[in-house]
């Protein structure tokens, strides 16, 4: 019987060696080791043997079985790897074909700049306020120390809104398209109590239009009202902003200027981020770019909004968004901002 087992084992070993697929191997396994398999059939006669013989043959058979099973397992593993590799080979794709995700959209550069500016100022405790675009001259001018019939009104070419009333000759509708974001200052000071730290981005309008001016452009306004505020704080706050926005090597300087709602009034320049102050076409070879109109809030403004001065005092500043985008992103002309050409907008991915 042992001989028979050895014979069968040998045949099985050969069959396992020969099997070229997992399926063939499985067939071999069933043929020799299955319940109805050849080895089992041989062992059916085991009962006829003496107990001693039975023990010896049984042990031999079990060893042979175990050996075969081990061989099958090893072979199965290698065949599986082989088959999987073949399958993977056949599944090869052309990875150079383009991806199929939908195209992303974009955020308009003006909004991109506004968002970034707001988030920088928010770290200094400024919060956002907004206001209407059609403004009453009171908020846009009078309360900001720009009285009617004063030449300071000529600083801003104003669009007047038709209010349907026939005004006396020389008098205008009190409704204007806001010429700056400063009326939001007025509104905030009238409705909220100091201390105040606000930033106000948005569209503004002026009736001039050429290659460097659009009649509808964007500004951001800042206002800080507190006790004991100094012009040096203004310079420090805008200096912080300039470094965050353009880079840590940016320097700022103040230059005298005139805005009726601040006194002293100044223009804040930043060293040109492009040429680092050496002079280039962006900064008209001066090494500096105009960053903000600014100054200490004028006592007349506090009077107009009913905030007690000098108990409370503060500063205000205004910056042009388009200009920031031009400097930061290198936008070549302002016409691009309102044309909404997709080839331009695509530059400003989210």
């Amino acid at each position, binding site marked *: 019987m042992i001989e028979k087992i050895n014979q069968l084992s040998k045949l099985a070993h050969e069959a396992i060696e020969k099997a070229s697929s997992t399926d063939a191997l499985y067939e071999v396994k069933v043929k020799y080791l299955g319940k109805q398999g050849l080895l089992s059939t041989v062992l059916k006669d085991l009962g006829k043997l003496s107990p001693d013989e039975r023990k010896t043959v049984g042990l031999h058979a079990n060893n042979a079985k175990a050996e075969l099973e081990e061989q099958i397992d090893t072979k199965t593993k290698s065949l599986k790897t082989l088959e999987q590799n073949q399958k993977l080979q056949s599944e090869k794709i052309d990875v150079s074909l*383009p991806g199929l995700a939908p195209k*992303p*959209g*974009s955020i*308009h550069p003006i*909004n991109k700049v506004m*968002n970034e500016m707001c988030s920088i100022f928010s770290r*200094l*405790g400024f*919060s*956002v*306020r*907004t206001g*209407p675009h*059609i403004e*009453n001259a009171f908020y846009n001018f009078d309360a900001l120390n720009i009285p*009617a*019939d004063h*030449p*300071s009104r000529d600083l801003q070419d104003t*669009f007047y*809104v*038709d209010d*349907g009333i026939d005004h*006396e*000759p*020389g008098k205008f*509708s009190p409704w204007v398209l806001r010429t700056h974001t400063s009326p939001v200052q007025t509104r905030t000071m009238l409705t909220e109590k100091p201390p*105040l730290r*606000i930033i106000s*981005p948005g*569209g503004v309008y002026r*009736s001039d239009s050429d290659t460097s001016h659009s*009649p*509808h452009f964007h500004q951001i306004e800042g206002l*800080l009202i*507190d006790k*004991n505020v*100094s*012009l*040096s*704080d203004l*310079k*420090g*706050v805008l200096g912080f902003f300039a470094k965050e926005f353009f880079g840590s090597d940016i320097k700022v300087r*103040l*230059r*005298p*200027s*005139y805005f009726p709602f601040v*006194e002293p*009034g*100044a223009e804040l320049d930043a060293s040109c981020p492009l040429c680092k102050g050496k002079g280039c076409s962006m900064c008209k070879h001066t090494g500096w770019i105009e960053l903000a109109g600014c100054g*200490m809030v004028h006592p007349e403004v506090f009077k107009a909004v009913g905030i007690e001065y000098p108990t409370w005092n503060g500063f205000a500043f205004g910056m042009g968004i388009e200009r920031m985008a031009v400097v930061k992103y290198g936008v070549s002309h302002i016409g691009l901002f*309102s*044309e*909404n*050409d*997709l080839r331009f*907008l695509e530059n400003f991915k989210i």
Partner: protein
Amino acid sequence: MKISLNLISKLGLDLKEYKAEPQKLADMLTSAGLEVEEVKDLSRQFQNVVVGKILEKNKHPNADQLTLCLVDTGDQKRKIVCGAKNHNANDLVVVALPGAVLPGNFEIKVSKIRGEESSGMLCSEKELGLSALSEGIMILPKDAPIGTAFSKYAKLDDVIFDIKVTPNRADCLSHYGLAREISAITGKTFEIPHTTYQESKESTKKIIKLVVEDTERSPRYVGRLIKNIKIKSSPDWLKQALEVLGLRPINNVVDATNYIMMMYGQPMHAFDLAKIKSNQIVVRGAKSGESFKSLDDKNLKLTGTELVIADGSEVLALAGVMGGLNSGVSEQTVDIFLEAAVFNAASVRRTAKLHSMETDSSYRFSRGVDPEGVILAVNKCCQLISEIAEGKVSSDFYDNYPRPINKQRIEFDLKYISLRLGFNLDSTECKKIFERLGCHVAGSGDKLLITPPAYRYDLRLAEDMGEEILRIKGFSHVPETLPSMSIQPSLDDKNYNLENKLSHFFASQGYAQAVNLSFLNHEYQKNILSDEANLDSTNIGFDLTKEAVKIKNPLNVDLSVMRKAVFVSLLKNMSHNVRHGILKGKLFELSPIFYINPTEDIRETRPFYEETHLGLIQWGESNQNWMKIKSPPNFFELKGVLENYFKAWNYKTYNFKNFKNTPLFLHPGQSAQISVEGKVVGFIGMLHPMVMEFLDLKINDCVICELNLKTLFMSQPRLTKSKDVAKFPFVERDVALLAPLDLPAGDIKQELLKAAGNLVVDCEIFDLFMGGSLPKDKRSIAFRLKYQDPLKTLSDQEVNALHQGAVKQVCDKLHLSVR
């Protein structure tokens, strides 16, 4: 404002050290707040331009119209070809040598003209930029020294500054003002040369009567007669002085008044005495309807708000703005009445605006003329007219100045500098700065009492004085500090944050953000919105029936009216893109829209209404990728994105429904009214073919959407609530229903959801089929319902009973059959 350094020197301020380095002075002025926009060195303009003498004039051998001249330019004799006709041998002429750059960036080089070498050019006045027209070349007097630089010969060694004077600095609108300013900045002092002229025996007051009826609008009025004037052209120095300042010389008297205005900032006017009727000058308010013919030959009808200078019968001048055509100085004028006055700034500005007459005079008056400077200017003018027009100045003059100006004293505490400007300055230095600015300073220690000069209208408060310190001391003294702030927690504007979040959402979904001008062409907007009156506001979630807001003074018709909807501008953007070959695109914009409607504001009612809208546009035919997968049609892609938005923002329900009454700009079969939580918030729809035709584009597939964010933001932001994940499995059941073509699938879905009760967690439409063996008026819609019980595993029997019950109920109600 143009300033000549030579003219400033004439006032007694020595600027020699800056003549060589004018940019240095310009920088000093700029850092003191008087921005020098341009520095023009006239002597540089005429480098390599010299006086020459024509030694020989010969015919050009190859050209009849040209001459070949031999010219002595001091250093050598040159051959120069010339095309002019008016020159002869021995004439002294202006020669531009090779290397000279004439106005218009015209560079002179040695060149061959018709075969003859020409090493220079004989110049005309026009070529030198000295006049607009000229006949032939410039011939100089016989005493012109050969070889001298032309700039030196013509005394063109001047430097001109173009200064941007801010409206608060009226005192700097003259050479005298600038001289004072330069003196304050540099510390150099100066004294105006003495005025001398002979007075005649004639008396102004005896010859003419002056009545100033309105001293409010005419606080100072000085008038003086000058007789026996000889009107002629001004001497060269005066003509030249006016020309470099950009003024056109007219005659000696007019030029003298203009010159005095430029020098001392005092506008003046000369009336022809012979034209003043009934020998009186009246300063009075205009009468409504009164007519006036101005110097520049315009016929005005006065409204009654103007201040005028009149004689016994008619208006001679609009006070401070412009003189009249008939009373001005002419070649026949012999005697003049010279006016130098101060008129109320606001009143002059109103009149100038009203009649659109901005003049050098009105410009100065509306900013403020120094009442204390009038007499100096009159005297200087009398001297000049007696010098150049041989006028005889009367012995007396009118000076109506009932309320002399009384400058208020300003209390200035030195603490202001340390507290508000951020640096320290001692009392002595502070005092010195104020005194240099012409202020009278009293007081001691930290508290100064300052009386600013009358011409500084802008100095009224301690803050103004603080700025003066900064201007003179230099803004660079301000350090950079961060404010020591009190904590004041404050929320951002809610809408700003929501708009921002929404922008990023749509950008993430593939849409590019657009920003448009708020105004557009009235006709364009009307054409797009077509029959505005039929656009019921309940229909689309906002009001297009209201009147658009018009701009009173638009730049042009294309920017004349505010937009009532955002999509109108987006259509323009689509046109732009399609015309540039971008045949497929997606844009969105968040912007305010405007119309006429009363709205509550913080202090009053506004006549105008503003609200923020979201506009979306998507155009172009759907395309196929390399896997042959088609992109979804525009309508359903946009609808899907909107559904994502509503879900992402936690709106409980939303609904897309056919219009009962479709807006005319939308395709009536492919458009929907959008409601969110029961409120109509906007619309989505394919553009009506008529609008497409109007836009005249080579595409015909465009969906637009506009949502009223005011409504949508009302209940935002919302809290996100976490839902537990169901523990028990879900079971799906499909059903295909045969339904009439015009029954919306969405309605059937709603009914199924309702009928299946609360164990149904989702209902998906997964197939749509028409034609084939189906009746022509029917379609098959396949639904997949997902059942799930939060408390137990549903058995097949339970689900089947539930599903079949629901299907039967819906079929019965809507008369459908299961396919």
